[in-house]
Every structure is written in C-alpha cells, then in structure tokens.
C-alpha cells in the first residue's frame, strides 16, 4: 500500500494551492459570511475553477473531462477545504457526479465538465443519512416515476441545477435526477454559508427516461446508492480534514507568536502536548481518508468499512480541532473579526453532514458484525 502522492499528484496539489491562494483569499470567504458582497466573489472563484477544468478533472475524456481519477479529485477537494472555499464544486463533483456514475449513467456529465451544470445529492431526511430512514416515495406513473417527500440538509439544494434524489418505491430505493425548477427548495440559515444547505420538497415530481438513474427494485440499486454515498462521504471527510489542518496550522502559528508570562504560549508543555495531539488527530484522519479514497478509486471490497472509519475519524478530528483550535486561540478566536471561525464552522459542518462520528462508528460496528444488522437499509 502506497499512501503518498505521486509526483503528478503533488504538482496538481501545488498548482491548486497556488491558484486558491489568490482566487480564494479569506476576504472572499468573509464576503460570503457577511453577505456584504453579493455573490460576486464566489462567482468569480467558480469561474476560475471552471476555467481550470476542475469540474471535469475526474471525468473521462469522452464526457469532456480530463480523464484523471478519484485521487486527483481528492487533491482538489483537500485544497478547496483548506481555504474553506465556497461554491458548487463539492456538491457537484463529489455528490452529483458519483451518483450519476455509480448508476452507470452519463447524464449531464458533459455539461458538468463544461462548467455549465451544477448538481447535488439529496439523501438525508430530518438530518439523518441512513438510507433506511428515507421516507420519500417513488411511485410508478406510466413509464416514469412520481416522487413525493422532503429532503433535508441538501448542500447547494437551493442553487444546484440538478438534484439526484434517493426515493423509495415498493421494491426498494431508487435514484432519480430532478431539475431545480421542479422542486421547492428553502434555504436554511446555517452556521457556515460556504456550504449552503436547503430543505428540498418534492411535491409529486414526475421523472422519466434517463432521469431515472436506478429504478426501485433494480438489483444494482443498493450497490449504486452505497457507492455514491460512500464517495460523497469520503470526500466530505477529506474536505473536513483539510479544513482541520488549516485550523491546526493557524493555531500552531498563533502558539509560536502569542506571548504570555514573557514567553510564547507554544513553549508551555501543556500547549505543546495539545498541539501534538491535534497534529496526530489530523494525520490520523488524513491517512484514513486517503486510504478510503483508494478503496473507492480501486473499487476495493474494504470500501464501506474504510469510508465509515474515515468519516468517523474526520468527525473526531473536527471535534478536537474546533475545540482546541478555538481554546488555544483564546479570546481572539472568539471574535467575528478573526478569520478562524470560517474554518471552525466549516469543520463542524463537515463533521455532521453525511453523518457524524457516532453514526459512522455504529455503521462500522454493523459492518464488522459486532451489532446486529438492521432492517430497512438500502
């Protein structure tokens, strides 16, 4: 097992980091938090991202992509998470695209690659991601399906062009693509406006043809939904760990700089040990996330457990770093004026979206056969 980047991957990372340093400065993020600047900053960033062909980076050339893989997408997800970038990348590339591809479809992928279509994935209901709890219905009408229900916490739910929806028919769950115009999306006022959430209501939306990605009852349904959710989940883990790493770096720099009692606070042993623990948490969660990315990239059997472990570790990491990062910054990190809160809020958001640490540990317990499996899961 080789968990280190290749040279090409390192180059991609360095390039992305360089681009984002100027294309996504803290002032741009502040504009999103304070909604002072309309959406111009975020729009310009998205134009830059599209200009670099990042939306299609991991798509096959036949769909207009660059033909790179999941690992390379992960590299970009890390760099975007690192600077708490706003914009449609996360939902479009790590949620919408994997769902379409897991279903064996290429619906609108060329538009995604061209930067003319954004998307998302609507799974959760009442804030819970277990596919077993999805109550949104899919019922046959003619040669199509009628969807009815309410999805919660859909990333970019009020702005994405296309939404992949998990809905349950009598024979099990299916996957459907619904255009934005057909849903009623209500933005949610949330802690972190860089990952905007919405409640999405489907009031008898009818879908036909290639918008039906996986029909309820299709024997491939569970594995397609599982794969799509796993990819979305591991990418959220990766993004979250990258955000945590930037909290860590900011806190480390602050500990070297801030003096109390005549010495840098980073020279106090208790502060040192907490920073060492934070470093371990970030490295640990990062290594687990990359391992899980590899199981996705190589379609390895260990994927579901690896993803559950990675997301739970990312959650642990987010909890530790949001706590110790803020605590070690002292009062300054508690102010709105300091940039730290962007990453604190992004970290806790990434912890909870697609299921928190305990949810994924419980899932791991089930996958390891330690607790009984439950009924009703996809």
């Amino acid at each position, binding site marked *: 097992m080789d968990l280190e980047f290749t040279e090409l991957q390192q180059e991609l990372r360095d390039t992305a980091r360089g681009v984002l340093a100027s294309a996504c400065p803290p002032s741009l993020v502040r504009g999103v938090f304070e909604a002072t600047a309309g959406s111009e900053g975020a729009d310009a960033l998205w134009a830059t991202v599209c200009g670099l062909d990042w939306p299609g980076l991991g798509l096959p050339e036949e769909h207009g992509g660059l033909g790179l893989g999941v690992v390379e997408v992960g590299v970009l997800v890390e760099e975007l998470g690192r600077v708490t970038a706003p914009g449609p990348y996360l939902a479009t590339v790590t949620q919408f695209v994997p769902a379409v591809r897991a279903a064996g479809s290429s619906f609108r992928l060329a538009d995604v690659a061209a930067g003319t279509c954004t998307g998302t994935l609507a799974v*959760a209901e*009442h*804030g*819970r991601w*277990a596919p*077993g*709890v999805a109550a949104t219905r899919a019922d046959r009408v003619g040669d199509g399906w009628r969807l009815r229900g309410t999805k*919660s*916490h859909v990333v970019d739910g009020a702005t994405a062009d296309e939404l992949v929806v998990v809905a349950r028919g009598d024979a099990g769950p299916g996957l459907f693509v619904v255009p934005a115009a057909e849903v009623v999306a209500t933005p*949610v*006022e*949330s*802690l*972190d406006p860089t990952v905007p*959430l919405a409640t999405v209501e489907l009031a008898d939306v009818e879908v036909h043809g290639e918008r039906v990605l996986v029909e309820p009852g299709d024997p491939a349904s569970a594995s397609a939904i599982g794969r799509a959710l796993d990819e979305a989940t591991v990418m959220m883990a990766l993004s979250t760990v990258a955000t945590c790493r930037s909290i860590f770096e900011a806190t480390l720099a602050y500990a070297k700089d801030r*003096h*109390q*009692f*005549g010495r840098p606070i980073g020279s*106090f*042993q*208790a*502060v040192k040990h907490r920073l060492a623990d934070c470093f371990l948490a970030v490295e640990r969660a990062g290594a687990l996330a990359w391992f899980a990315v590899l199981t996705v990239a190589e379609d390895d059997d260990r994927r579901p457990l690896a993803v559950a472990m990675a997301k739970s570790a990312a959650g642990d990491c987010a*909890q530790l770093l949001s*706590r110790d990062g*803020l*605590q070690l910054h*002292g*009062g300054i*990190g*508690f*102010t*709105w*004026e300091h940039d730290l*809160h962007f990453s*604190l809020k992004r970290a*806790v*958001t990434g912890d*909870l*979206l697609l*299921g*928190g*640490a*305990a*949810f994924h*540990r*419980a899932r791991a*317990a*089930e996958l390891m056969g330690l*607790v*009984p499996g*439950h009924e009703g899961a996809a």
Partner: protein
Amino acid sequence: MRLRFDPSVETVRDEFRDWLGANRPAPAEMAADPALSTGHAPDWMRRWTRRMFDAGWLVPGWPPELGGRNAGPVETFVVLEELARARVPRTSNVQGLGIVAPSIVDYGTPEQVRDHAMPILRGEATACLGMSEPGAGSDLASLSTRAVLEGDPGSGEWVIDGQKVWTSGANYADFCFLFCRTEPDAPKHRGISILLVPMDTPGVTVRPLPEIVHPGEPDLNEVFLDSVRVPAANLVGRRGDGWAMANGSLAHERGMVWVNAVMGLEEALEQLVAQAPALLAGMEPAERALAADEIVRIAVDTQAARCLGQRGFAKLARGGSAPEQALMKWYASDCRQQVARVGADVLGAGSLESGGVPNDGHLAVDEPRGTWMEQYFHSFANTISAGTSEIQRNIVAEKVLGLPRG
C-alpha cells in the same frame, strides 16, 4: 452528611419562592427586551434589581442597607437556587453586582460606595471591569494601561492612557472599574491601581467586538483610553494595591459562583433530556445507544458538578477549606461546553441551523445560548475568560496539590 437542609432553611426557601412568584418579571417582558450585553440593563431588569434590593433578596448575606438581610450562606444558596429554578436572572450586570459593587464596599470610600456601589445595587447603574489588555490576558500583572496623577492626591486628576480588550458590557456600562499601572517603577504586581472611570468621560472610546455567534449582540469590547481624566478621588483603595484587590474581589462570593454555573448546566441537561426521546427515535439501535451514552456521560458530570459544588460549599460554610472549589470553574465550564456539544451531536445536521432560538432574557448574556451548536461556540467565553481552563489546571496543581512552579 445528609440529603436535605434544615427545616429553617426550607422556610426561607418557601418565603422567597412566594415572594418571587408575586414579584418576578414576566417572561414576556423579559423576552421582549432582553439584555444585549452584560453592561445593559433593560428597564424591567432595573426595576427587578430595585425590587430585590428593597426586599433584601439581592445579596441576602449583606446587611439590609446594602440590599441584604444578614442571611447565612445556606440561605443565600437557596435564594440563588430558586432564582435559577424560576429562570429569572439575578442581574444582567454580572461583573457589576458580583465583583465591582462588593469591591467598592470592601475597599472604597463612603462617597464611592454612595455614588458607585449603591447605584449598582439599586439597579440604577451598571459597571464593567477593565482588566485584560492585548498583551495581558491570562497574565494580568503585565498590564500596561497607564495612569499618572496630576496634582495632589486630594484634588488632582488621574490621566489615563492605554487600551483594554475583552471588556464585557463596556458598550452599555455607566462606569468602568479600571485596572491601570500607576507605579511604573514598582515590581509589576505592586504597580497596579484601580480607578473608577465614567464611560462618558472624554477620551474613552468603546469598540464592540462582534462574537463568533450572535454577532449582532456583542458583549465584549475594546476600550481605548486617550488622555482620559478622572478626579484623584476616583482611586479605589490604596495606590499599588490593585493586584492584591483583584485577587480579593475575584474571590468575592467564591463559595457561590459555582451555583449559577451548575444550575445553568442542569438547565441545559434538562433541555437535552427533554429533547432526547424525539432525537433518539430516528436512530438505529446501535447509534441510539451511543447517543444515549453521551447524554448519560454528561448527566454523570452534571450530577458530579452539583455534588462537588455542594461538598465544597459545606466545607466552606463550616469554616474549612475546600479544594473542590478550585476545580469548579474549570469543571463546570468544561461540562457546560460538553453538554452543548452533545446536544449538537445528538441533534446531528439539524444543529447546523442557526438563529432559530431567540434571546429570551432569562440568561445573562455571557451564558451560552441559542441552538446547541451556537451554545457550543458561545461556551468558549467561559472556558477562556477569567482564567482559561489551562490556567485553572495550573492553579489546582500548584495551589491545591502543591506542585512546584515550572
């Protein structure tokens, strides 16, 4: 050792509870005009402080002329307990009533008591506490705001220059209890004095610091002092005794500060337990057991905080020393943070939503409030201010356990 207080104490409790029922501010008026900072006292709060003062319930252990009734510590304790249970704040001006007024009573002149302490006690004025500076947070003794006496100690003026930060309530307070360096040549612990500075004095500029959550209701401020002049008579206590008085005034009601912290913790736990059935119902059994366990853990901590507080209190009330007390600030604020975190985790993604819980005025502004995640972030005010949890551990290790300084 026993579970219940003497009947005589329960009589006081009943008396206060009856009075409280008849005199308390209505939840609707509290919610309509909540305090926006710890220096802000809405009209209902001013009336309420005055009513408690007049009835001798404001500071029960003090003599009647200072708003008390010469009550014993156990009686004071049950008054605080009943206030918390009724969700009525004792004051919004936590520092003013808890630290500034008692310090003036202890160290000030009769005129200072009349003009500064009594207005606080009668709900007519609020005060803020000017301690932290950009370069002196945990390390108060290194503060550099400077005051120079021009003229003689009877009729001259102090001229103050410097900057304070993290000053709670300065954006609404009437005056500041200001720590400044008056003896630049003395050892740093001996060169600090306390001055009373009306906030409308020319040269005082307050810049509110919006906070990580509820940025629209800032409580913390920067206070800039630029050639601020106050009468020489505004010196509290003796020149150079500020550090010693700080340790004295921060010790005020030390036996009691845990009460609000623990009752706040208990209130939060109660809310979490009340929400739990609905939150847990949507989970698979294994996740549910883990979520329940997080709630149990913080319930154990809450019970422990209560027991530790009461054990220490019993020791102090008997005139002994109580190492538990040194743990309480750190432990209770860590627990308060944790209950919010558990609430957020158990609620899940729903806890990312913000702004949904209005300020209903029943908590002091520096207490965690809002949604669970907002409470979580807000709770760092208490694990950071007045000695971070790290500093508290040092204090316990050195003062209580007798470990050598590093």
